[in-house]
């Protein structure tokens, strides 16, 4: 646990943007936290879980983002300051709640942190949360640095309570995972001494029951509150540099501000009028209008969609301001901005030579990188998913269709496993499998074998499975149950043995209760058992569920390392190895390497985590335990 997060007094520490948000929430008197993990937001959840007991706050890993969002709403309505956090696509899941709750408003402050992932470092798509803020008509704050993340989190709570509105705090990968020095404030009294989540729900059905006549009144009240917020708070949420500078202006926000500051030095210019807005929606109208009147030409620099730009253009039009406005004509709209991209946009705006020959450097970079072997992420050594995928392929052959889902197991896409044919959004494995099973009977009916992780199953697989069974579908669903939400850092889910506040839910009992036509539980490390279950499943029709259960290897090895325990290691007997490469080309554990001079496989002892699967894969019985780890 980081001291800087829980220390009652103010202090200075190196913090991630995400940690600064946690501290900001605590300094604002947070009592209730609920979230589902997702890169790049997960460290907020992890930190909250970590400190909850010590500080007396309530923190839970929720089953999905919608559930978390609504739980926070309930807490806020009970007078407890609440926060949820999620990745950008999490808000798609929670958007139903957001769109209705927006106009119903809050009682105690409620801040939803939403982390965008420009360039899709760890995501299936790129989307701009600020558009959701505009859609739902709630304010969105957009910090630039970790320090800023702390202070804007506090500002968000202030606005939320003053105007009774949900506030979105939007971060991006670059900010969430930026580390920098942060000076914290102090915590309010009472943390650690009492439970901070004991409130009271005061009934107010005329606000909290969104029947049409109530919803109409709520909507107008909310629209008014938002108008007032923009008018009253607007000028406190902008910063202007060089107010008496040149007649060229920049309007920016979020991490783009950093790149503008660096581009200034890089290009050797000074005196540019820079307006940084900390609120991207609603854009503070009067300060923007005044700024536009003070310049001849302005460049809007923002990452992803032209959210600020479009509002700036509207304001200029409405107020009849004669100013040349540039934005996405000069600044890239797709993918993450970088210092060099912004320096080039700025040099084009100012009609200066770019500070570097960007195209040349990029070309040289491409040529050089092409010599490096591609190293995409891989399933860990001993990962149970690998063994399950291998067994599925062995039983179902190449002719089967493999809809899959999101998690570590999406890496089954890569050779040699190639058992992931589709991946859309969480839970889609089951529903897409259903659609394929119904619609692709034309070519004689291929077997459809869907895979889904345990966390994803509880997140949004449940309703899809109910639908498939109720509609008499025909596919095999293999639940890859490693007992955790591995991809995002091993948070518990409702099926986990530990880490939850309440009861564990059994996946196989759920499947049975829903009426699946076959339910089996197998151990992925026993490859022939998985193949056997697959074969039995393939003999019948209907929705068949196989639960492949074995703890995540990384989780179990990390625990062993922490406790100073050892584990088994396997090695290849060079005399028996014929060099067939089955262990590498069909199975592909990263601990197994190829000795090109001897034409034999060998196992890197540092990387072998001892699952024994490769020993079952080797057709020549050449792989054996060499160190039983005791």
């Amino acid at each position: 646990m980081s001291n800087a997060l829980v220390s009652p007094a103010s202090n200075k520490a190196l913090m991630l943007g995400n940690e600064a948000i946690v501290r900001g929430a605590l300094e604002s008197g947070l009592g209730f936290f609920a979230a589902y993990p997702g890169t790049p937001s997960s460290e907020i959840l992890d930190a909250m879980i970590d400190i909850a007991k010590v500080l007396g706050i309530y923190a839970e890993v929720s089953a999905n983002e919608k559930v978390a969002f609504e739980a926070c709403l309930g807490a806020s309505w009970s007078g407890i300051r609440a926060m949820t956090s999620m990745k950008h696509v999490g808000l798609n899941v929670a958007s139903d709640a957001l769109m209705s709750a927006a106009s119903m408003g809050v009682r105690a402050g409620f801040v939803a942190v939403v982390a965008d992932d420009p360039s899709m470092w760890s995501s299936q798509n790129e989307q701009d949360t600020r558009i959701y803020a505009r859609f739902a008509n709630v304010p969105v704050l957009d910090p630039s640095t970790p320090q800023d993340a702390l202070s804007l989190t506090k500002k968000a709570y202030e606005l939320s309570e003053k105007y009774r509105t949900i506030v979105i705090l939007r971060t991006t990968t670059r900010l969430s995972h930026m580390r920098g020095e942060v000076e914290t404030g102090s915590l309010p009294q009472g943390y650690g001494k009492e439970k901070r989540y004991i409130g009271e729900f005061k009934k107010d059905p005329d606000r909290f029951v969104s029947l049409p006549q109530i919803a109409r009144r709520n909507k107008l009240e909310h629209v008014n509150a938002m108008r007032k917020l923009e008018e009253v708070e607007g000028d406190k949420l902008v910063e202007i540099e060089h107010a008496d500078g040149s007649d060229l202006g920049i309007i920016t926000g979020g991490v783009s501000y950093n790149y503008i500051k660096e581009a200034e030095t890089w290009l050797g210019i000074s005196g540019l009028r820079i307006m940084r807005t900390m609120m991207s929606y609603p854009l503070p109208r009067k300060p923007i209008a005044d700024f536009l009147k003070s310049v001849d030409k302005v460049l809007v620099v923002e990452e992803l969609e032209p959210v600020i730009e479009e509002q700036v253009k509207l304001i200029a039009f409405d107020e009849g301001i004669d100013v040349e406005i540039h934005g996405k004509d000069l600044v890239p709209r797709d993918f993450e901005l970088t210092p060099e991209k912004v320096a080039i946009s700025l040099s084009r705006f100012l009609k200066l030579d770019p500070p570097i020959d960007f195209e040349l450097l990029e070309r040289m970079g491409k040529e050089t990188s092409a010599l490096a072997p591609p190293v995409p992420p891989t399933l860990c050594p001993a990962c149970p998913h690998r063994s399950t995928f291998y067994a599925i392929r062995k039983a179902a052959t190449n002719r089967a269709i493999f809809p899959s889902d999101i998690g570590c197991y999406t890496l089954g896409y890569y050779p040699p496993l190639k058992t992931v044919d589709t991946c859309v959004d969480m839970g889609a494995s089951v529903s897409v499998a259903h659609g394929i099973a119904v619609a692709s009977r034309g070519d004689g009916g291929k077997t459809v074998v869907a895979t889904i992780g345990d966390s994803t199953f509880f997140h949004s697989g449940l309703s899809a499975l109910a639908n498939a069974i109720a509609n008499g579908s025909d596919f095999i669903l293999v639940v890859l149950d490693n007992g955790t939400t591995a991809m995002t850092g091993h948070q518990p889910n409702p099926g986990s043995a530990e880490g939850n506040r309440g009861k564990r839910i059994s996946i196989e009992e759920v499947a049975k209760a829903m009426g699946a036509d076959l339910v089996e539980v197998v151990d992925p490390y026993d490859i022939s058992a998985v193949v056997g279950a697959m074969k039995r499943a393939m003999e019948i029709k209907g929705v068949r569920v196989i639960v492949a259960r074995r703890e995540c290897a990384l989780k179990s090895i990390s625990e062993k390392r922490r406790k100073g325990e050892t584990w088994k290691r396997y090695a290849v007997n060079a005399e028996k190895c014929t060099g067939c490469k089955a262990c590498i080309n069909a199975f592909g554990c990263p601990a197994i390497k190829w000795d090109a001079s001897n034409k034999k496989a060998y196992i890197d002892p540092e990387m072998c985590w001892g699952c024994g699967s490769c020993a079952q894969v080797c057709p020549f019985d050449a792989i054996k335990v060499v160190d039983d780890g005791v």
Partner: protein
Amino acid sequence: MEYNIIISGIGGQGVLTVARILGEAALYSGIKVRMSEVHGLSQRFGSLFAHVRMGEQVYGGLVPMGKGNMLLALEPAESLRYMHYMKKGGALVLNKNPIEPPQVSMGLFNYPNLLKIKDIATEKFGLRVIEVDAKKIAAEAGGELAQNSAMLGAALEIPGFPLTREAIVYAVRKVISSRYADINIKAIDLGSEETKKIVAAIF
């Protein structure tokens, strides 16, 4: 002063830990620091990088292309992805021990020759290459896990590197489990020692 470092390697090698150590050392030294880390998918044995930036003029977490002072490559081939971020005359501190990725084991790709990597760094990008046998040094210090500390020891010898041994040692004690701190500090000193001569020859 502005000093930009990129650390490159493969998930599991400790890229983020090295970054943390540098960051804490900068904070300890009263130097403004901004870092970018990559969390998530790539941590599963994929290519991984972190940026560490020090100096008053530094705002964002990303090293601007062509402005890097040091590339700390924990794995040789991984250095190839970031050389174009370095300045001419910048330092490439290179752990000479390759980690063979699955695509190479599968025969889908050839691992580049170490001499060629160094050649590209010097000829094409004008970098000064400091080759470190971090594996050997770590073994000498008492454990293979201390390879990255050997690399930090080497970095300490590069002219212009803004952090002191004292600051790095402080940060190692703060970031690394106390059980392994001494081995790592020994690796730092051995790394420095081995590097002194090479640095004297090329700087």
